[in-house]
């Protein structure tokens, strides 16, 4: 490429859910800022012919574990953001359950500084809700806001004390910080390693009852109504949870929800091979639950797709199922898996799917991201929506390989990713550039 300063993408189908755009037109930028089509002359710019491709606003993953500091053997800010770029994500929200946890302004500053130096996509810090993620005392929400967090969450844990959670939702509203919750009653889910249901009973595994999620979803809806403030349900996995959120949104209560690609594509039947790459929390649930999550995406109850990218080393995962840590990586598989499962199966149109990665998360976070509006940073995701390929974990940029999607037959993938106008990932053929 001649330079990063001026670029024109030509001939692609352009989708921007914020403006409702879905047609073939040019997208261009100058100095990393999106410009009006036609405002830049082709002589001064890199021109890419992207016929057959889809140009979208940069994708946002609201749910990523970067593992730095604490578990840099599994992932670092560098490798995690490279994986994000390869997956088509230009912004990722970094969960605070690092070691030590991001429950103070210093930790947020560390993340921001490091991401500015080493990161290849935008890293939006998420601060802890409670000190040490212990669910006992409030984290310094005001200081976290001043340090630049985009949201608050005790992800991985769930505050069990309803009064503390009530106060946190109220207090967060004052700082305009959305509360993201991993919905789980810890007593009901205690000791569980998979979904409680037919397969846990057959396999003799300790199950995690759907009720553990549903009860907290109901609690959060009530607290969101009381405070009239945003509570976002992370990785919804159960039918009843989807129904609760649907009813609450109908009433105008400010709640939202995300679904992960694995809860869209997989169910608990996979556990019968005792492969720990299918162990995550919330667990893969029944087919009925999977279909309910998909219906929630279809009817707009669930507005966000997020990966819950959770890297673990091969050593950590190569153990007995009971002893393996929860979590799988997702940044590099989310786009192919959801294109295959939702778009090519006719459940979502391409603009609807793109919205779950752009407008959906941007609305929850209250940030002006996820749009191709001129004047905004040139964060762009280019999709190659129809190419069939087989996912190979050995090609990942992530430091970890804990994925259930190795060998998955996908249709569609990310072709290129631009952050602030700079190409951070591309598998576009050479001849796309003039």
């Amino acid at each position: 490429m001649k330079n990063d300063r001026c670029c024109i993408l030509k001939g692609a189908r352009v989708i921007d859910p914020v403006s409702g755009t879905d047609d073939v037109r040019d997208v261009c930028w100058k100095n990393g800022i999106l410009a009006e089509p036609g405002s830049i002359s082709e002589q001064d710019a890199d021109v890419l012919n992207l016929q057959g491709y889809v140009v979208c606003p940069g994708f946002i993953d609201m749910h990523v574990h970067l593992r730095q500091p604490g578990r840099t053997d599994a992932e670092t800010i560098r490798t995690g953001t490279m994986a994000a770029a390869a997956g088509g994500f230009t912004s990722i929200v970094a969960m605070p359950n690092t070691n030590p946890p991001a429950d103070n302004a210093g930790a947020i500053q560390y993340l921001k500084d490091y991401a500015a130096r080493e990161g290849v996509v935008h890293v939006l810090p998420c601060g802890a809700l409670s000190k040490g993620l212990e669910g006992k005392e409030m984290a310094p929400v005001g200081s976290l806001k001043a340090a630049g967090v985009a949201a608050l969450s005790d992800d991985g844990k769930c505050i069990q004390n309803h009064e503390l959670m009530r106060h946190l939702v109220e207090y967060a509203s004052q700082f305009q910080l959305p509360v993201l919750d991993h919905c789980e009653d810890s007593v009901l889910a205690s000791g569980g390693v998979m979904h409680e249901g037919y397969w846990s009973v057959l396999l003799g595994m300790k199950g995690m009852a759907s009720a553990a999620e549903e009860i907290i979803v109901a609690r959060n809806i009530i607290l969101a109504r009381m405070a009239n403030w945003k509570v976002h349900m992370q990785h919804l996995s159960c039918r009843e949870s989807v129904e609760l959120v649907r009813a609450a949104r109908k009433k105008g209560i400010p709640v939202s929800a995300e679904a992960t690609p694995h809860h869209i594509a997989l169910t608990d039947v996979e556990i019968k091979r005792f492969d720990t790459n299918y162990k995550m929390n919330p667990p893969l649930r029944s087919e009925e639950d999977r279909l309910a999550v998909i219906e929630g995406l279809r009817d707009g109850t669930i507005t966000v797709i997020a990966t819950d990218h959770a890297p673990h080393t091969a050593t950590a995962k190569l153990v007995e199922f009971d002893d393996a840590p929860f979590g799988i990586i997702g940044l590099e598989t989310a786009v192919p898996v959801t294109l295959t499962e939702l778009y090519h199966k006719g459940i979502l149109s391409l603009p609807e799917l793109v919205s779950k990665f752009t407008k959906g998360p941007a609305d929850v976070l209250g940030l002006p991201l996820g749009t191709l509006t001129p004047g905004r940073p040139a964060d762009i995701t280019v999709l190659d929506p129809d190419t069939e390929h087989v996912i190979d974990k050995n090609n990942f940029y992530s430091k970890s390989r804990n994925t259930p999607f190795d060998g998955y037959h996908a249709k569609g993938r990310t072709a290129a990713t631009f952050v602030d106008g700079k190409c951070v990932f591309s598998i576009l053929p050479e001849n796309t550039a003039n």
Partner: protein
Amino acid sequence: MDFTWTKKDLLSLYDLSREEILCILNTAEEFKKVSQRNLKKVPALRGRTIVNLFVEPSTRTRVSFELAEQRLSADIINMNAETSSFRKGETLLDTLRNIQALQADIVVIRHSAPGAPNFLSRELNVGVVNAGDGAHSHPTQALLDIFTIREKKGRVSGLNVAIVGDILHSRVARSNMWGLLKLGANVTIAGPATLVPREFEGIGVRVCRDLKEALRDADVINLLRIQHERQRAGFFPSTGEYAKVFGINSETMKYVKPDALIMHPGPVNRGVELDSAIADGPQSVILEQVTNGLAVRMAVLFLVAGCLK
């Protein structure tokens, strides 16, 4: 018989065909004859090395396996959680890789984690015999139960078998269900609703909430040990209440057919799930189960060893 055994592992009866189960039972019949001779030892596994890795405590299963191995003339190494390297933080897989490096042939494993033997069989070339993995599977126990039923009743197909007790946490119950269903028995499960999940209906088992009804037409009654920790975890109010409502005693025996077999995998909580008089009575085959366990384990080890390189 034309059938040839081809598996290097015995992980679960879920994985076995009807023919494979019958193959083990028929082989066990031959080994039972060996155990009735004066000279009880055969050279079938001479030169083979078997490691008994008991990561979870066990007495009767471990002793039964050890004796079976001795009678087959195998060399034996015993490891348990206390003496093994787990205490030093070595992973299960690394421990087993070391054992494999010593050219062991078969690992008999007891573990608290469901699927641990499946995990090892995938990662290792040695034969893996499951001696009980959490609540998942205990194939040799179910095989010896089924062997005993077949020996006493002359058949398995068409029999009504009631399994009573803590089904939820029982690997014995699960393995029995798979094996019995594959051989054509009718299986009923009963006990406290908190411990008898309806999900088993999905595999063709009858879930019965009324103990008397479960007992009435049973040809075989297999009782499971009730563990005190389940009471503490709030699954039922007390062992006293359990004995009264779900135990087999002179009162509930009124509903049992006079020729029904009373079975128990042991150890028995006398006076809780089973009254002493009945455990020691004419319908009980509890000690014969133990005897048959030896023959069944000899058969399993013999067959598995025959499939190793």
